[in-house]
Structure formats: structure tokens, C-alpha cells
């Protein structure tokens, strides 16, 4: 499980490689908060290589969504596979986040 962060234009892109669960969600949260501290405002989290997410992983995404919004920023999620989409639909978090099918569409939507 690892998180890779890179910049594409004005957008901080975070790749979640592996599961986003109780054991590593704090690491994701801190990495994104560090970027916000640096003044970044646009964050895209890419789930192309994510296996599954548990409730604490979803909780961190909710927390980041609030924090980013409070700082006048924007968050996008991209490349959720069908299983992950089901998770967001079950918890109605698909109504809270802006979710794009591809990274390119997510980048264009900022």
C-alpha cells in the first residue's frame, strides 16, 4: 500500500496503490493536508490501482472533502472500479463527492 503524489498543472494528483483502510488512511490524510498547507487548492485522488476501501478510508475522504472545501479548494475522485462505485452508492457518498470515470475528465472538471 502506497500513495504517490505528483502535480499536473494546478492539480495535485494522488495515486492510491493498494487498499485504503484503517491501517493507512492517516497517511493519506496527512499527505493531502501537507499539500493544502503548501497552498494547493485542487486535489484529485486516483483509484485506478485501489483494491478496496473500508469505512475508515471512506471517513478520511469525507474529512478531506470538508477540509478542502473549508479552504476554498476542490476535490475530485477518479477511476473508481465497479466494486468501489458500489461502496460509494451503498453509503450515498456518491452524492457527496465529484466522481469522474477517468483522470482526464476529472482534470478537465476543475
Amino acid at each position, binding site marked *: 500500500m502506497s500513495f504517490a503524489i505528483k502535480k499536473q498543472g494546478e492539480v495535485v494528483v494522488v495515486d492510491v496503490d493498494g*487498499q485504503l*483502510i484503517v491501517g493507512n488512511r492517516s497517511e493519506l490524510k496527512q499527505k493531502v493536508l501537507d499539500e493544502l498547507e503548501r497552498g494547493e487548492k485542487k486535489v484529485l485522488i486516483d483509484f485506478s490501482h485501489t483494491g478496496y476501501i*473500508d469505512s475508515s478510508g471512506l471517513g478520511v475522504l*469525507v474529512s478531506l472533502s470538508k477540509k478542502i472545501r473549508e479552504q476554498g479548494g476542490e476535490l475530485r475522485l477518479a477511476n473508481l472500479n465497479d*466494486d468501489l462505485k*458500489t461502496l460509494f452508492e451503498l*453509503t450515498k457518498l456518491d452524492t457527496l463527492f465529484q466522481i469522474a470515470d477517468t483522470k482526464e475528465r476529472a482534470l478537465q472538471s476543475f
Partner: protein
Amino acid sequence: MMLPQESEALDAVASARLRVALELEIPSDIRYIESVVTIVARHCEQFHFTPRQCALNIPVALTEALSNAILRGNGERDGPRVQVKADVTPARLVLEVVDEGSGFDLAECLVDPTSPDNIEREDGRGLFLMTRLMDELERFTSHGNVIRMTLRRHD
């Protein structure tokens, strides 16, 4: 007993009677969760549970049960352990996760995280996901605090 050259893979009828019963025990440490999930999911793959059940239902529900057992049941203390039992047949998976805590009232702890009041909460989705991803969920006290989950294999 059949000689190797005479034995054949179990046919469908015989396979229907195959059963795997696993028992695992881990310390109260969340770093062990993924390994337990991998072991259980792999056995379910062998029994042809669906790709979704193996990639979503089982991993997420079991992760929730294990993290509750470790963080809440055992208070993440050194010493208390978590037992996991997985009973797999071609028809269903029954999982039991046992911690050494005093238990909790399942009905009281089950909140609706999808309501407008709760949707922006960071917590409160674990038990909800377990009920949605598993066919049955029970909590009882036996040789510890037990969460039992059942998932029927879909064709």
C-alpha cells in the same frame, strides 16, 4: 484409497460436499488485517464465490469486523488476541470474529450513515457496511465477544 493415476478431480456432485474450516488468531494489531483478509478471500475464490464477493463483500466486511475487534473490543491492548473462524462450503461462507471485550448492543450501535444528518460524519459506516455486504450479521457473547457474518455464494 485411489492410486494417483486413478484419481480424478472431484466432480460437481462431490465438490458440493467439500468444506474448509479455518481458524486464525492474531494480536490486537491492525497490521495483521490484510493478511487475514487475503487468506479468507483466497479460499472463497477456490469455492467460486463471485469476483465481487471476493473483492468487495468479504474483504470490506471482514476488515470492519477485525478493526472493530482490535480497536474497540480489545482496545488495541497488548495481550488480548482476536480469533477468526471461517467456514466455507460451495453454498456459503460463515465468518466469526471474536475479541476479548465486553461486547456491545448491535441494534443500538447501528446508525444510518446515509441520512442527511450523518452523511458528513467521518465515522459510523462500519456496521452499516457489514449489514449491507453480508447476508446475515449477529453479535453474541460466547467465548468472548463474537461477530458472526454469513454470505451465500451467488451463481
